[in-house]
């Protein structure tokens, strides 16, 4: 009796499943992924327009075509400090191939005067940007520092890494994979 019940249940589930699959088809391009800005893998990276330590404005949109690591950090955050040398090494190794780093200091929750000495101490050669109003930290919905966004050449976020420190192998594997993608 139970066997018959299960068989009927199974056949009904298969048939209903087929109907639902047909009904819930999504035409190619109908999903919002990759089209609207949001701080999540699969979405366009939200706008970044910030000054660096020399007062020069850097815009994420101007870097389209490059692979970007957007790292949001603060000087007082131990894992942020711990991962900076690895980020610098990876940047130096892959910058000629089209890799760039935007190190956004969450200045709204840090001390602006500490940032330049920090960059000098760690010998950072990539752009260090100051998020003095906290706008970028908020628009990227950063809940924990550091938070890193790997962004492809098309401006779409491929991966979000919350917390740290990121291992050098993790950085290299992601950057190499993204550099292999066609522009």
């Amino acid at each position: 009796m139970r066997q018959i019940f299960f068989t009927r249940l199974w056949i009904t589930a298969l048939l209903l499943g087929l109907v639902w699959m047909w009904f819930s088809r999504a035409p190619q391009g109908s999903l919002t992924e990759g089209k609207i800005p949001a701080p999540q893998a699969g979405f366009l990276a939200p706008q970044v327009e910030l000054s660096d330590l020399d007062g020069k404005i850097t815009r994420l949109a101007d870097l389209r075509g490059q692979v970007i690591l957007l790292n949001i950090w603060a000087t007082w955050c131990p894992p942020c400090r711990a991962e900076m040398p690895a980020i610098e090494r990876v940047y130096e190794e892959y910058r000629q191939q089209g890799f760039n780093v935007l190190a956004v200091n969450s200045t709204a929750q840090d001390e602006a005067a500490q940032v330049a000495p920090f960059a000098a101490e760690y010998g950072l050669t990539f752009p260090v940007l100051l998020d003095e109003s906290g706008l970028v930290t908020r628009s990227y919905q950063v809940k924990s520092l550091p938070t890193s966004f790997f962004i492809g050449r098309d401006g779409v976020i491929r991966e979000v890494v919350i917390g740290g420190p990121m291992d050098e192998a993790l950085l290299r594997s992601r950057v190499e994979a993204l550099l292999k993608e066609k522009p």
Partner: protein
Amino acid sequence: MFPTLQIGPLALQTPGLMLLLGVWLGLDLMERALRQNGVNAEPFYNLVFIGITAGLLGARLSFAAQNAAIFAQSPLSLFALNPGLLDPFGGLALGMLAAVVYARRKGLQIWQTLDGLTPLLAVLAVAGALAAAAAGTFFGMETSLPWAVDLWGAKRHPTQFYALGMALLNLNILGWQKRRGGLQPGELFRLFVLLTAFGWLLVEGFRGDSALLPGGWRLGQVLAWLLLLAAGKIRNKE
């Protein structure tokens, strides 16, 4: 969405925490169910421990093998705590292999073992849905329905909560069937697979990040339907 839980200077990853909680509660439920049936839970605990340990090892080794040149530059990365350096397929393969070898050496019967593990798997499905809700992954399509959630720049189907509802419903159905008794070996596990596959098939239809096949068919639904087919086929063969 709450990806981290800030406790003083410590930022705990909520999705990972949910999964750990799921393993703990699932093991507890598994033990209670086994005890009710007069079965010793120790081999099941060992099986899960060996499966998880081998799974983690396999996931790291598989990732390292696929990125051998990178790990040759920094061999200590093999021991890094970053979960991003894991290959889930390699982990699943070695974890399952180790569990099968252990089960065979201990003479565990396959269907009874799978039935014994079913409460753990059912609780893990609940924990997985909660982890997805915490991380904001597996998000839904845009909708104007009143219960839509504001996520990733749009009002969306709360697919993580649909999945949570399905997983809780499945847990209850499995508990009800177990209490009724009279189940043949393997029937509880197959019912779990059937319910989970059907739930996946339903929820996938609302997702906003499905991998699509030509014609707009959703890959996840096709896989879930094949799993559903397999669950019934295996049962009917016995």
